[in-house]
């Protein structure tokens, strides 16, 4: 029996509700439920992956395009799996460092975050995408200020304000889309936008750019990246590790809209998204890597590494060719895990015995992954991106290579500062090293099994480039 598509949304919601209702004071029960939910999500993602994709489901059996549909295609399932694996590893780290004891409701908020993320990846409806964005954001507001403190609250307020402005813009964009096309179902939009009369081109292009700006805020794409370094550096490092996947929600949404709703083939769109995303991605790379060079601590370093990874992903995605999307997706998975590992190390460094031999070794390995140096998967990802963007090599190659070098210098400087100056010989508890080691193991797996993983991302990219199967799956619900 195939589990319902809605189950990755329902499972964390039920887990969170159970924690709040039955286990408010019982941290042990909350931890068990939280881990069980993460394990369940991994299982659900795997079971989706083993069945035929894409698959669509109408919520409440309302026919499409009037009701809300959930659609799982290769990209959705890949993102579900990424979120579930990252959540499991981050939760293991939470068990070892006890960050959930610093305040109330860590685990319920964490589950609501997972619910929002999963919903955003599964929905086939633009307005539901907005709703799930809000679900994941409101959970993230609570997690950012987890543990309290004036600095955290101040950063939290700025984070909330930025995202509220983004949400307002999202609604304006959706309003224009609905006024122009009369639908918000992504598959239906795809056909409506393709056959729009020439008089409506300007309106739909305005809406497309508004939505792109919202996704750029989420992804921290220049010029909308200003909120990220302060927020991620002020948030608890363990939480920030989970947030490494949140910038990728923006990348996911931009990719979904850029291939399905506003594709290059549509006469109304032309190469609008590609023209905007390529320069934005390149500038993001430069801003992120210069930030890495100047970062004053490991938390800020990891925050700027998140910006750099967004830039790299968008440089790849902006081509909107199957090869480049495939390379971008490979790098997206890699960079999410690498940045998360760097945040987990930031947590270790701040703790007793954090600046000792074992952590230094881990930092070296994670730095290799973040800087995309051989032998880890980032190097392969960047190589694939460079290869796929051969079309504009004169512009893209120098920027990607130079920013890699700048980022590497920043990481080398930070490493020597952390572990050569004032290092302490006392090693940390071995259990606290588990989660970063697991993340590195996944990255190593992505390197060793690069060919099958790349084949998988190529299949996903081909399906995105030619969304006929996606449209048929939704069509079947009419």
């Amino acid at each position, binding site marked *: 029996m195939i589990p319902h598509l809605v189950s990755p949304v329902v499972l964390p919601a039920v887990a969170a509700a159970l924690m709040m209702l039955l286990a408010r004071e019982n941290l042990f029960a909350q931890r068990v439920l939280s881990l069980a939910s993460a394990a369940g999500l991994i299982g659900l993602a795997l079971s989706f992956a083993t069945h035929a994709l894409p698959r669509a489901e109408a919520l409440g059996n309302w026919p499409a395009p009037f009701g809300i549909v959930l659609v799982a295609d290769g990209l959705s399932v890949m993102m579900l799996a990424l979120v579930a694996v990252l959540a499991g590893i981050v939760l293991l780290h939470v068990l070892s460092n006890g960050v959930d004891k610093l305040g109330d409701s860590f685990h319920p908020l964490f589950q609501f975050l997972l619910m929002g993320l999963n919903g955003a990846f599964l929905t086939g409806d633009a307005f539901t995408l907005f*709703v799930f964005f809000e679900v994941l954001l409101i959970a993230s507001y609570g997690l950012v200020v987890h543990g309290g403190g004036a600095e955290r609250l101040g950063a939290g*307020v700025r984070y909330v304000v930025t995202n*509220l402005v983004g949400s*307002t813009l999202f609604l304006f964009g959706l*309003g224009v889309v*609905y*006024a122009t096309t009369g639908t918000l179902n992504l598959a239906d939009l795809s056909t409506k936008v393709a056959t729009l009369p020439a008089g409506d081109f300007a309106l739909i292009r305005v809406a497309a750019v508004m939505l792109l700006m919202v996704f750029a805020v989420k992804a921290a794409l220049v010029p909308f990246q200003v909120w990220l370094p302060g927020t991620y550096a002020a948030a608890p490092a363990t939480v920030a590790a989970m947030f490494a996947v949140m910038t990728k929600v923006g990348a996911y949404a931009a990719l979904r809209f850029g291939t399905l709703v506003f594709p290059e083939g549509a006469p109304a769109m032309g190469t609008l998204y590609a023209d905007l995303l390529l320069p934005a991605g390149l500038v993001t790379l430069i801003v992120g890597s210069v930030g890495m060079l100047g970062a004053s601590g490991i938390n800020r370093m990891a925050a700027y590494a998140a910006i750099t990874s967004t830039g790299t992903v968008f440089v790849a995605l902006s081509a909107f060719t199957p090869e480049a999307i495939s390379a971008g997706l490979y790098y997206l998975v890699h960079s999410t895990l690498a940045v998360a590992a760097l945040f987990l190390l930031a947590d270790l460094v701040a703790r007793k015995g954090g600046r000792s031999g074992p952590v230094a070794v881990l930092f070296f390995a994670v730095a290799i992954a973040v800087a995309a140096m051989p032998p880890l998967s980032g190097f392969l990802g960047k190589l694939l991106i460079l290869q796929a963007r051969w079309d504009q090599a004169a512009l893209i190659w120098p920027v990607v290579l130079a920013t890699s070098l700048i980022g590497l210098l920043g990481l080398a400087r930070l490493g020597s500062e952390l572990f050569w100056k004032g290092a302490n010989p006392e090693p940390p508890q071995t259990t606290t090293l588990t989660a970063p080691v697991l993340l590195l193991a996944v990255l190593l797996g992505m390197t060793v099994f690069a060919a099958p993983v790349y084949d998988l991302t190529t299949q996903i990219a081909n399906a995105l480039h030619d969304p006929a199967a996606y449209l048929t799956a939704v069509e079947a619900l009419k």
Partner: protein
Amino acid sequence: MEGLVAAVIGLLTAAGVWLTLRPRSFDVILGLSFMSYAVNVFLFSSGRLAPGLPPIIDPAAAGYSDPLPQALVLTAIVISFGMTAVLVIMAVGTFLRTGSDSTGSDSTDDQDPS
């Protein structure tokens, strides 16, 4: 009527943007509220302005107003209300801890020009 509604949306948005750019959290919250009012009216009008017409099936109706934007607005109102509440709590928390309601990123920004 279209002109009036458009002007109101524009005015609310302008006021919202201006207030949101002010460096104090109280002004910013007011600005965000104005912007959410503006976007709610905007969403309403995205289903075309049809005053006095029912949104649900009625044999005697001369025409219909689009029910979908109304549902969207309802969702948007609930979400923006909740978000504003969260923001108010966080802003009050920051004010009580730091004694300043500046939204600037470091303490040198704390002096408000007004």
